[in-house]
């Protein structure tokens, strides 16, 4: 499969009064055409910032992409002019945000918001745009789309609004959709509806998807490949099967062990990751997971690079992957 997006050594920093926050600290990954890649991690690990950086949506000041390249279909997005990147946004790469209430404009009708993009990017006439908008709303499973076009966001429920967001993302037939916690604000049954819809549409239309989430279950159900982030870096990356069945980084292992699973016998006690994530203004050369890690050794004072640890491009940044393997073997 052809590479659609190649991110190399991306660094995004925020220059605040409290110091320089290294929100994204040198991450590299690829997305192939039509593929679903998940980025998982906890709040503040840089997953959203890394996604916003792709479309250069980082507020400047205080934020700035300080290094790296983001090649999309061969073009480096970081070298484009403002007008050129505006043309990419919403057309080649679309975004679906977490909060459908705040990401839709409350004073414009659904129709106005949908047709705006169509007229802007595809130079459609207003009749053409309306017809296309109706078609799109039907595609995302909204009943009576012609009537919905005249409604305002507050007329719709959270699930419906997220469907509208997806329709907006799809309207210019993008190659890539970035979904930032697309279902976190929704209820479980609605979450399942929205995720199935996104999976179905991306497969059918051949759109690649970057889904950012903290929910390990969603990743397992929908992602082809997974990048696990911690403190601004990717600490492990691989196919979903490799990550879930053969985790090699202690953080990935700890994350998987800390959630109770409904399909397994109830466990006596959960295994939480002790402590707190680090302060991103005070990162040094050492492995940032070191203070919370069960496998720590002296060498951890220098963070290792990502190295191949398994099949199908499975990489992890840890000196102690062998110990993780042993502990997994012992547990089973």
């Amino acid at each position, binding site marked *: 499969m052809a590479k659609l997006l190649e991110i190399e050594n991306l660094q995004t920093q925020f220059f605040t009064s409290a110091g320089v926050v290294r929100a994204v600290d040198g991450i590299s990954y690829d997305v192939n055409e039509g593929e679903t890649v998940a980025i998982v991690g*906890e*709040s503040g690990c840089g997953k959203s910032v890394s996604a916003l950086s792709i479309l250069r949506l980082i507020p400047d000041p205080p934020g700035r992409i300080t290094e790296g390249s983001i090649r999309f279909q061969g073009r480096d997005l970081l070298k484009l002019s403002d007008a050129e990147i505006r043309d990419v946004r919403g057309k080649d790469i679309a975004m679906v945000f977490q909060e459908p209430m705040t990401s839709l404009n409350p004073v414009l009708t659904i129709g106005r918001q949908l047709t705006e993009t169509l007229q802007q990017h595809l130079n459609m006439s207003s009749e053409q745009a309306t017809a296309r908008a109706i078609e799109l709303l039907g595609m995302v499973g909204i009943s009576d789309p012609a009537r919905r076009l005249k409604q305002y966001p507050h007329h719709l*429920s959270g*699930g*419906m609004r997220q469907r509208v967001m997806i329709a907006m993302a799809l309207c210019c037939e993008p190659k890539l959709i970035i979904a930032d916690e697309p279902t976190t604000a929704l*209820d*479980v*049954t*609605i*979450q*399942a*509806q929205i*995720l*199935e819809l996104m999976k179905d549409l991306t497969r059918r239309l051949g759109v690649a998807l970057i889904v950012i989430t*903290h*929910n*390990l*279950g*969603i*990743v*397992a*159900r929908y992602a082809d490949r997974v990048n696990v982030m911690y403190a601004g870096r990717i600490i492990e990356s691989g196919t*979903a*099967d490799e990550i*879930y*069945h053969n985790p090699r980084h202690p953080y990935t292992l*700890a*994350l*998987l062990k*800390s*959630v*109770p*699973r*409904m*399909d397994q016998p*109830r*466990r*006596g*006690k*959960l*295994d*939480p*990751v*002790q402590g*707190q*994530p680090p302060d991103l203004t005070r990162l040094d050369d050492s492995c940032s997971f070191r203070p919370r890690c*069960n*496998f720590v*050794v*002296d*060498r951890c004072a220098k963070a290792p690079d990502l190295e191949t640890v398994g099949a199908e491009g499975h990489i992890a940044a840890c000196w102690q992957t062998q*110990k993780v393997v*042993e*502990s997994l073997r*012992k*547990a089973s």
Partner: protein
Amino acid sequence: MTTTQTNAAKDETAKAARTAAEVESSGHEQRRQSVERVAQASDLVNVRNLKMHFPVSEGALLRRVVAHVKAIDGISFTIRKGETLGLVGESGCGKTTTGRCILQLEHATSGEILFDGTNLIDLDRKSMMALRRKIQVIFQDPYSSLNPRMKIGEIIAEPMQVHKTEPNKAARDARVKELLKLCGLDPRFAGRYPHEMSGGQRQRVGIARALSVRPEFIICDEAISALDVSIQAQIINLLEDLRDEFDLTYLFIAHDLSVVRHLCHRVAVMYLGKIVELADCDELYNNPLHPYTQALLAAVPIPDPEVERTRAHQIVKGEVPSPINPPSGCVFHPRCRLAVDNCSKEIPEFRELRPGHWVTCSVV
């Protein structure tokens, strides 16, 4: 690395593995004991046919009530001493309102709430105040539930002042330190402000505050929903340990079904103001009878790609209807896969289908 270091590291790993196994088995033992204790205990909370209808009014000058939001529409359940009852359901199903009614933060439209035999609904202010000490609450959002202008020590001490349980300042301060330690925080945090702490730490403060007046019953309203996965597990373990140490009774309101399964003895599933199913935890998860419970369980993704590939995904259609104008008959019938004609006409009863397993459905 020298050999001694390697050996030390090995020992360390082995120790970690061993303690994990020990913790695991002691956890099982802890649960078994608590299940046994609960089986013999008497009812602490008894909610009977509780209704909470909020009026919806219209008109600027002549306000008149045009409809009612039936947030809770006739629910009944009991919670035994030492038991944890899980209350699950989607937003707007009335689970938080149920908690607020028990706390007397809302005045229920009708029904009874018996706490240790006393009906809270017709209690006067003074006697309620005395009982209120025994019923505490932990809120969802650790950012908005702590006063940003109060120090952590003051926040935890406030309930003790209100209920006059520790009239002496020195005793209060000592108790604050003890509570902080109990909840896994450094006692020095007493002098800090909430903004200096992370979400998980703030939630621990919320728990310490609830414990400060030695309650019997704690309502945990989405107490872990706002926390990160790795921190959630810490708080779950803390809640479990405290339950066993102080023989606490919890009403655990949540939407995360896997967490509820881990923590609760019994589980009630709510939908649009009604309890649709109530059963022992294992019974409910292994043998869900109500189509809504089944759909809810099927909608939770399991963190394992292999399991997910083989799992049947029956996705419930549509959305939760408005509680102002709920569907006729069974409120779930427009989304139900088992619905028959009669479901839109007849309101199903909350009946005991098997011992201890209650369902509101006339089809199953």
